[in-house]
Each structure stands twice: as structure tokens, then as C-alpha cells.
């Protein structure tokens, strides 16, 4: 039973190995390794400043990790040998009939989305505020439309191929808007939407890039309980009906425990627990990290270990 559940080691879509990210003297992520299972909802949790957003930024190419390998497999049948060979070869990715592998730490941020198929949202929402909701989703389909418009030449001449593609793109957008319940706001500027709707729109926009892995940075932050429940349904729908693997950072334990197939707990840049929801919930280290331990106990431990108290860390954002 337990073995069957561990989809992430059997068929990982993303493997993060020995990831280290230093900012000057600060080690934000420290020798972190984990796998994200294909078709799973994986949650990355931990206290503020634990380094979760930094991991996201490394995976999506916004930061170049100091050390480590981040491998994305688009198909399941990639052998470890193929991965090792790609790593040696110095290339960024290998696409073959047996499966494609992408070494994300070598790729530029936009290439990661375009070629490897990783999409993300941001902790502090980044929408195109002055553009309409519909336009936001059309921008997300840029690369596809660019090709269809013959890199603008065909589009300028109004060739039928482009017009068809534009229609299709609009249909995709409308479909997602209906799904996230924003269709009636399609012609409103994105900045005019209420907060919860902006979060949903950002998710829909990321999905319009047609990803295999969707990274969501605190999607439930600032949502009310009803909106949170809707988000749960949406994430399950994405996983089940579109086969998109989801990696999310979340503080709302209600969301995390209910929908996650796999939870990874970070504290001070290190992994302290990794497993299914029931496993993680009962892990004493997680409880200690989340609830904190008594002051006296801390002093005892510090005396034993002879360490200085850890510096307090401010919360950082995506950028």
C-alpha cells in the first residue's frame, strides 16, 4: 500500500538533486533533493523564509542555482543513463523518441516555459494589469501564435492560417475563463478584478502556456474559505483532467492536507520531512518547526549543540 503511493520515486516528472542556492553569505537552500511525481499534486511547505520561493525561482530559471541538478522528464521512459549522458554532454536538453529530458538549471527562464513546459505563478501576483482578462490569456499563448502568424509577416497580411490560430487561441482562453469562473469579466482590465479572481486568473494564464508542470507560489494566500475550496476543486481538475503535475507552495494547511499527494517540508533551506500527508502530519520534526518548541527547551538544545541562535530571517519574494 505504502509503496504504491510513492508515485514520485517511481515516475518523477521533476527531480531536484543537491540544490544549493547562496546569496552572499546566506544559504537560502541547502543541499535540497526531492522528486515531484507525474500527475501528483506536490506541496512544498515550511515557515516563512524557509527558502520555498527560492526553490521555485531555481526551478523556473529566475535564479541560477549555486549547485545542483534540476531535471525535468516530459515522458516517463527516461533512463538514468540517458540523464547522466545529457549531464556530461553539457547540452541543455535532449528530445528523443524514448523521452525528453531538460536540465532546467542550464536553461533560460523563458526557455523553461517555452520548451520544457514549466509554468508558474508568483507570490505577489504579476498580472498585466492594464490589459483585459482575455488579453492576459492571449499573451500566454504568444509562442504558438507567433509561429501561426509567420513571425508577424503572415499576420500582417491577414493570412487565413493565422486567423484560424487566433480563433483557436481565443477559444482556449474562453474555455479556461469559464473554468475559473471569470468569463463574465473577460473584457475588464485585470487590475480591476478582486484579489481572489486575480489569483485564479494568474493560474489560468499559466495554464494557457500548456505546461506539464505547474508551479504555484501561495495560490491560496488572501483567499476566503469559499475561494479556497474552489481553488482545491480547480487544482484537482487540472491534475485529473489535464494530466498537469502541480507543485505548490502553501501555508493554508486545509488546502495542503486535503489535496496533496506528496508533501515536502523545508526549514532553513533544508528538507526536514518528505512523504504523504498523514506521514508528514505526524512527523515530530514538522510539528517542532511549525509549532516551535518551548524557550527552555531551545536553550537546552543550544547549550548541547553550542550553536548561536539562528539569525532571524525576513521574508523574501519572487523578486
Amino acid at each position, binding site marked *: 500500500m505504502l509503496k504504491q503511493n510513492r508515485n514520485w520515486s517511481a515516475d518523477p516528472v521533476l527531480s531536484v538533486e543537491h540544490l544549493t542556492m547562496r546569496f552572499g553569505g546566506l544559504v537560502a537552500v541547502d543541499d535540497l533533493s526531492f522528486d515531484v511525481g507525474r500527475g501528483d499534486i506536490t506541496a512544498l511547505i515550511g515557515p516563512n523564509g524557509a527558502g520555498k520561493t527560492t526553490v521555485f525561482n531555481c526551478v523556473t530559471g529566475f535564479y541560477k542555482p549555486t549547485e545542483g541538478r534540476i531535471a525535468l522528464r516530459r515522458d516517463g521512459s527516461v533512463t538514468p543513463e540517458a540523464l547522466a549522458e545529457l549531464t556530461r554532454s553539457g547540452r541543455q536538453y535532449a528530445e528523443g523518441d524514448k523521452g525528453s529530458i531538460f536540465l532546467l538549471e542550464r536553461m533560460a527562464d523563458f526557455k523553461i516555459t517555452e520548451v520544457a513546459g514549466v*509554468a508558474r505563478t*508568483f507570490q505577489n501576483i504579476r498580472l498585466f494589469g*492594464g*490589459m483585459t482578462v*482575455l488579453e492576459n490569456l*492571449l499573451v500566454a499563448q*504568444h509562442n504558438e501564435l507567433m509561429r501561426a502568424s509567420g513571425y508577424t509577416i503572415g499576420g500582417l497580411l491577414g493570412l487565413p492560417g493565422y486567423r484560424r490560430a487566433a480563433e483557436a487561441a*481565443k477559444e482556449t482562453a474562453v474555455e479556461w475563463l469559464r473554468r475559473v469562473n471569470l468569463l463574465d469579466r473577460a473584457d*475588464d482590465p485585470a*487590475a480591476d478584478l478582486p484579489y481572489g479572481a486575480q489569483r485564479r486568473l494568474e493560474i489560468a494564464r499559466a495554464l494557457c502556456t500548456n505546461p506539464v508542470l505547474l508551479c504555484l507560489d501561495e495560490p491560496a494566500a488572501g483567499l476566503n474559505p469559499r475561494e479556497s475550496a474552489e481553488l482545491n476543486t480547480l487544482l484537482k481538475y487540472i491534475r485529473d483532467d489535464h494530466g498537469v503535475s502541480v507543485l505548490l507552495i502553501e501555508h493554508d494547511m486545509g488546502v495542503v492536507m486535503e489535496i496533496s499527494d506528496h508533501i515536502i517540508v523545508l526549514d532553513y533551506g533544508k528538507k526536514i520531512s518528505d512523504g504523504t500527508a498523514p506521514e508528514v502530519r505526524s512527523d515530530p520534526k514538522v510539528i517542532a518547526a511549525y509549532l516551535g518548541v518551548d524557550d527552555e527547551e531551545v536553550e537546552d538544545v543550544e547549550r548541547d549543540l553550542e550553536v548561536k541562535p539562528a539569525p532571524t530571517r525576513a521574508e523574501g519574494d519572487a523578486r
Partner: protein
Amino acid sequence: MADITQSASANRPEGAERLSEDRREAMRGEPPFVEAPAEDSRLVRALKEAGITAGLIAVLTFFFFFMKTDIAVGGLSLTVDPWTWFVAIAITFVGRFLLTFFVFAGERPAVGGWKKIAAATAGWPIGKVVGAVLLFVALTLPFLLTIFLPSQDRYLLDLAILILTYVMLGWGLNIVVGLAGLLDLGYVAFYAVGAYSFALLATNFDLGFWVCLPMAGLFAALWGVMLGFPVLRLRGDYLAIVTLAFGEIIRVVLLNWYTFTGGPNGILGIPKPTLFGLEFSRGKGSFSDFFGIEYSSIQRFIFLYYIILALALLTNFVTMRMRKLPVGRAWEALREDEIACRSLGINTTNVKLTAFATGAMFGGFAGSFFATRQGFISPESFTFIESAIILAIVVLGGLGSQLGVVIASVVMIGGIELLRNLTGLQAIFGTGFDPTQYRMLIFGLAMVLIMVWKPRGLVSTRSPSAIYKEKKAIGADLVAQGEGH
């Protein structure tokens, strides 16, 4: 320029709105502990402020208007002219009084009132109507002029050509600044590249206007890419400064590369455009000869007018079309949020380069037209002030607005010309008053006024590039301005 926009938009309307919000807030809560100071009545306050302003002006202009020193034989001569001084003071007093009494002291800020009007008329297709009327006037202008103002038609047609050149330049720069949100202070560089490539190609290889025109555009686009590369990574003020430097570098190179560009002497004898090989001159094989009509120098002007009109309309058409294509949408997305663009798999390098190249290409076309119209070019025509005027047109018109650029060009270029002829002001300031000396001052004042009144430009709404059901204009307060504003 950009700074004026920024601070004006940051201060005036928001400040006024905040103030009234704070007041309402205070009224709802507990009474304030300190008595609010008794406010002067509107009239007293207006008089007070007008007095202060007039006093300031009196001090500031004392040595310019009241007592004036001029160099005379054997030293300086002093002229005392209290009359001009009094007039200046009186104007500021009355102006400030009216402003304070009717605009600033109103219960609701005047901007709020304007918003109401704007909201009430939002449903009307004003932009479309104005655009259609302008287009009609532009298409028939030469005939309108010969019918209604035959005595001045050459002068006015020449002015119209000049205005249209700036409309085209404004539309070109609008792609870079208004759509892609990259503040470019050196746009005149592409104008110069276009003009010089046309002039050099035409004079050295004996090519005609219609062959050189696309080549000049391509050269300028190439330069756009070349200048675009180094500034790709720059943001904000740095981008503005480096583009400004590029504009100057091009001019200095043109000035000093004597053997190639002729240096300060410029290039002479640039051929005039022909209509399918027909020249606009006297004699055999000319336009008038071919059609058997009498030769008149106005024919050439009309022809030039229609060339620049066609070029400008082409610019407009391509820009409007591109806005609805993925590349144009990516420009606007780039202006809104570059990081979000990259997270969606958009290669922002390419997006920026296409914006620079497209903008530069239209600048190049306009440059070739300038060269063929003048028949002579020199580096003097491509100074920083040109960049500044074009940018001012774009900013005053409203970033990203095509119609705004037209209105701003007409007002700015036409306005400068009109001020040249404002001899009526001599009645007030005495016969020694020369309006041409003050036109830049008046012009600057007008610009400040517009920036106070409409900080985001004349046409400050954005119309969406794709519509699901209903087209709604987007208010300027929601639209980002991009880098360096």
C-alpha cells in the same frame, strides 16, 4: 519630460482625492482633538494666493522687465519699462486668482468633475468620429486649401507636410515608448540614419526615391537592432540616458566623418521624388507636360503632401495591425510586467528588439522623406531637440494613443508656427514685443498646463486589442508606463 508626467500624475488628482477621503474618514470617527483652523472664505483665499504669486513674479521679473540693461556704446545702457512689468504682474494676479477661485478651491477637485464628464461620454465613439473627420480633412486638404485659402496655400501646405512628418515620427516612437514602454530619448538617430542612407544612396548610386525609401527604412531598422542590443539589459533612467547618448553619437559621427557624410556641410542635390518617372518641373517629360496642364510649383507640394500622408497612414495601419498580433500584444505585456512575460515563455530580448526595429524603420522612412523634401541635409537637423519634440508629442498625446499623437502634433508643430504670427499681442505689450522670442516660453507653459490638467496625455485610455463580448476602454490609471517614466 517624463518626470513631469510622473510627478504630476502622482500628486494632483490622488492628493486631492486622498484629502477628501481623509476628511470623510475623520467625520465618521470621533471628533478631532484639535479644532480645525478656521478656513478663509474662498474669495479671501483666492485673493491671498493671487497676491503672493503676483509678488513673486514682481520680484523675479524686476530685472528683466522693469529695469533692463543693454550693451551700448561705451558701456551699458539702462532702460526702465514699468509698463511691461505691471502687465506681467497683472496677468499672474488675475490668472492665479481665477485658478484658485474656480478650480483649486471648488468643493470637489476639478479633476473629479472632468472624470464625470469623461464617464458620461464613455459610450460615444468620439475617437472614431474625430479620427474619421481628421482623415477626411487630411485626404482633401490640398483642395480645401486652394478653395478656401488660395493666397496662403503654399505656406499652409508646407506646414501640413511638416506636421505630418512629425505625426509619422510620433507614431513610430509610440511603438517604442507607448506600446513597449521603453523610454527612448535618441529617436532622432533613426531619423538621421534614414535621411543619410537615402541621401548617400541617391547621390552616390543615382537611385531614385522609391528604390531608396525601403532601403533607408531597412537600414534604420538594422540600426534599431544594433542600438537595441546594448540597452536590452538596462532599465529605467539608464535606458533613457544611454539612448540619449546614442542619438548624440550618431550626430557627432555624421558631423565628423567628413569624407563620407560631408560633415557640417551636409549633402546637397538630393533628388526629388517622381511619379512613375514623371518629374515635377518645367519642360519635357515632366508631370505637367505629360498631363498637358500648366506647370505650377504647388503641384510638387501636393505630391509631397500625399507621399507623407501615405507614409504616415502606412505607419498607422501597420501599428494598429501589429497591436492585434502576438508581437504587439507582447510589446504591451512587456510594458506591463517584464518578469511575468518571461514566466510565460516570451523571449523579451526579441520583443524589445522588434519594438526598436519597427520604430526605427518608420523613423527611417520619415528621414528619407525629410531628405527628399529638403533636397539638402546636414547634422544640424538631427539635434536632441528633435528627439525631445517627438517624445513630447507622444507623451502629450497620451502614451500608446494614435489619435493623441495626431492632435499633439497639430497643436505643437502648428502651434509653434502660429505663435510666430501672433502680432496681435503687440497691442498689449507695446510695439517692441516680438512674439517669436517668446514662443518657446508660451509653448512650455502650454505643456505644463496640459500635464497638470491631463497628466497621462490628451487621450489617456487604452483600447483592448482583443474583445470577447464588449469593448471597454481601460483607464490610464491601470495601465503601466514601462521603463524610465
